[in-house]
């Protein structure tokens, strides 16, 4: 443990905490600026203490993969929007609603798409799906006269998308945990996906009963104007192309970066719909990108001075000298990313994986079961992945709040849904263990239970008929597809 590491840790947490509490006004110094200034102070302090600085070591803390995937996703979303794919999707949703499967089927499939076809960053799906979810939400609000429907649908979509980078087999956080912990590749994915389905249901229920703000009337008028627009010529084709490419990528897993695939799809849509570069720009949201990059810079600086090693040391000290013990501190450690929600879960999650493995080993020795370590690492990664949802500092939740023009934050109940769902992933790992072979009886039972419960919740929230076939069939289809894909 070094003095510079301790000071770096204090400055880092102070900057985050002050930004979260509003002591550093976001109107004066947004999160990005606060993190960069904190990094600068850490570096100056380190130099003053005689530490050696290697700027390259800071840069190695920056994960380019989620950043470039998000940029590619935003560009593709811009192309899809300009080509009219979202209007086409709204039309399909309308037709689906009028079928016997009805609204619950449409809702459960839509909000679980980000986890079903998991991308390295949830924002890749949030950009194209939010407009469709908004249409569905407003439609439901008109039918059911429940003005919270848009918030309910968007909350479900947002938390599902936020957590989806955990189980993603295309460079998700789960793969990092599997690699560093030497677990079978792909063994974390199903446990996390099923827990995320529960997380989504919890978020929707909590938003219905705990969130008081409703969407303003003006938003309904704006949405109506949007819906009255004529669908563009190439919208449906662009949408089919997009879905086929994503599904194909998930199934085939080509030896080609997902960013390249998304960009090629973008160019194809540009050619088909006659778009220019200006049309792509409308999909780009700079705030989450800059928030992620500044977070990575801060984490890289902290890592260079051994700040994360100090954190693990401090947690170890607390474990041995307080009544919390290793079990209590392990629980705190698993939920640490949710206590300090940053714009990207990787910022803290990846740096602390060695610490989690170490704590997991201690607790496993005490409990006499090696599975404890597996439970801890899966739970930690899930909470890290989902933590960007409720983050008020450029998290995915704020995209939804912005689109709905909500004044109060949805962060509290999104965090609560994470708290409730993470133990489900732990329970799943504890009972079924980690294995790359997921087409087993245990996983099949878990998929059926998860699908049915999610379906029941969706039925209740959307049409108030718990046993409506739409939700149940939709839930089963989604959960079984998660098992297979």
């Amino acid at each position, binding site marked *: 443990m070094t003095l510079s590491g301790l000071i770096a840790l204090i400055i880092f947490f102070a900057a985050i905490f002050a930004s979260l509490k509003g002591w550093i006004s976001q*109107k*004066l*110094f*947004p999160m*990005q*600026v606060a993190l*960069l*200034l904190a990094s600068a102070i850490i570096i100056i302090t380190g130099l003053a203490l005689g530490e*050696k600085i*290697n700027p*390259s*070591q800071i*840069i*190695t803390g*920056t*994960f*380019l*993969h989620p*950043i*470039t995937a998000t940029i590619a996703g935003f560009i593709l979303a811009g192309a899809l929007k300009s080509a009219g794919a979202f209007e086409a999707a709204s039309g399909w949703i309308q037709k689906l609603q009028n079928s016997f499967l009805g609204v619950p089927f449409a809702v459960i499939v839509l909000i679980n798409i980000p986890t079903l076809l998991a991308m*390295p960053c949830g924002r890749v799906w949030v950009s194209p799906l939010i407009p469709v979810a908004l249409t569905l939400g407003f439609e439901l609000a008109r039918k059911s006269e429940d003005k919270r429907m848009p918030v309910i649908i968007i909350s479900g979509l947002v938390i599902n998308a936020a957590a989806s980078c955990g189980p993603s087999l*295309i*460079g*998700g956080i789960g*793969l*990092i945990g*599997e*690699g*560093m*912990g*030497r*677990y079978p*590749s792909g063994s974390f994915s199903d446990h996390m996906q099923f827990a995320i389905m529960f997380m989504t249901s919890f978020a929707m229920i909590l938003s219905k009963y705990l969130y008081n703000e409703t969407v303003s009337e003006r938003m309904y008028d704006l949405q109506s104007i949007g819906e009255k627009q004529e669908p563009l010529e190439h919208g449906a084709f662009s949408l089919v192309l997009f879905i086929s490419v994503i599904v194909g990528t998930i199934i085939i*897993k080509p*030896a*080609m*970066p997902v*960013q390249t695939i998304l960009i090629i799809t973008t160019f194809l849509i540009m050619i088909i719909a006659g778009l220019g570069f200006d049309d792509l720009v409308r999909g780009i949201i700079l705030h989450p990108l*800059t928030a992620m*990059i*500044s977070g990575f*810079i801060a984490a890289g600086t902290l890592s260079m001075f051994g700040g994360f*090693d100090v954190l693990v040391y401090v947690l170890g000290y607390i474990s041995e000298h307080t009544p919390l013990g290793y079990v209590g501190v392990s629980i705190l450690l698993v939920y640490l990313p949710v206590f300090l929600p940053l714009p990207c879960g990787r910022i803290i999650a*990846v740096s602390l994986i060695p610490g989690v493995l170490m704590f997991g080993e201690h607790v496993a020795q005490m409990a006499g079961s090696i599975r404890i370590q597996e439970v801890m690492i899966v739970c930690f990664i899930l909470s890290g992945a989902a933590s960007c949802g409720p983050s008020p500092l450029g998290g995915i939740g704020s995209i939804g709040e912005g689109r709905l023009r909500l004044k109060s934050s949805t962060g509290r109940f999104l965090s609560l849904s994470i708290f409730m769902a993470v133990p489900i992933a732990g329970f799943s790992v504890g009972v079924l263990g980690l294995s790359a072979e997921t087409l087993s009886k245990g996983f099949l039972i878990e998929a059926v239970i998860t699908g049915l419960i999610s379906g029941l919740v969706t039925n209740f929230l959307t049409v108030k008929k718990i046993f409506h076939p739409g939700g149940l069939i939709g839930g089963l289809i989604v959960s079984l597809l998660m098992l297979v894909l």
Partner: protein
Amino acid sequence: MKDIIKKINAALFAFIVFYLGFIGFRAFSSGYPFSLICYNCKSCDSVCVIGIDPQGFMAASIVDDPDIYVYVTNYRIYAGEAEKLDPDMIIQTHDRKLSISKALRDGTVTRDSEVITYKMKARHAANICIECAACERVCPVKLPILDVVKGLKNKESGAGK
């Protein structure tokens, strides 16, 4: 917002954009631009018996610096040799992780003791890599990791490619 605050904010946001461009430029100048594609999935890390994190080699080529520290968690080396290579090399001993120079100073290990490494510079890790290519086989985007390893071997400190 006051004018000066606006300027500070704008400058720092511009710095963030510049930072991203700088990373891309360094990756190109290292001669291994494909390192930008790395998923950072650690699939390579899980198959190396020596405990090298091959993603560290990709990181070294992104920043074009062979002196960044990468995980090497299962390589046995004599303490004297480790200190000669790099006094700041991090080793594991008695459940602690500390630099080899500190371990020798404290008397935790002697020069003839065998220690297990934890972190070392990328160019040293490249020298101990036996080029079994297990990491290349599992890479989801089939990055030519060994090209980077061979480039890093016997590299002088601080020299560009």
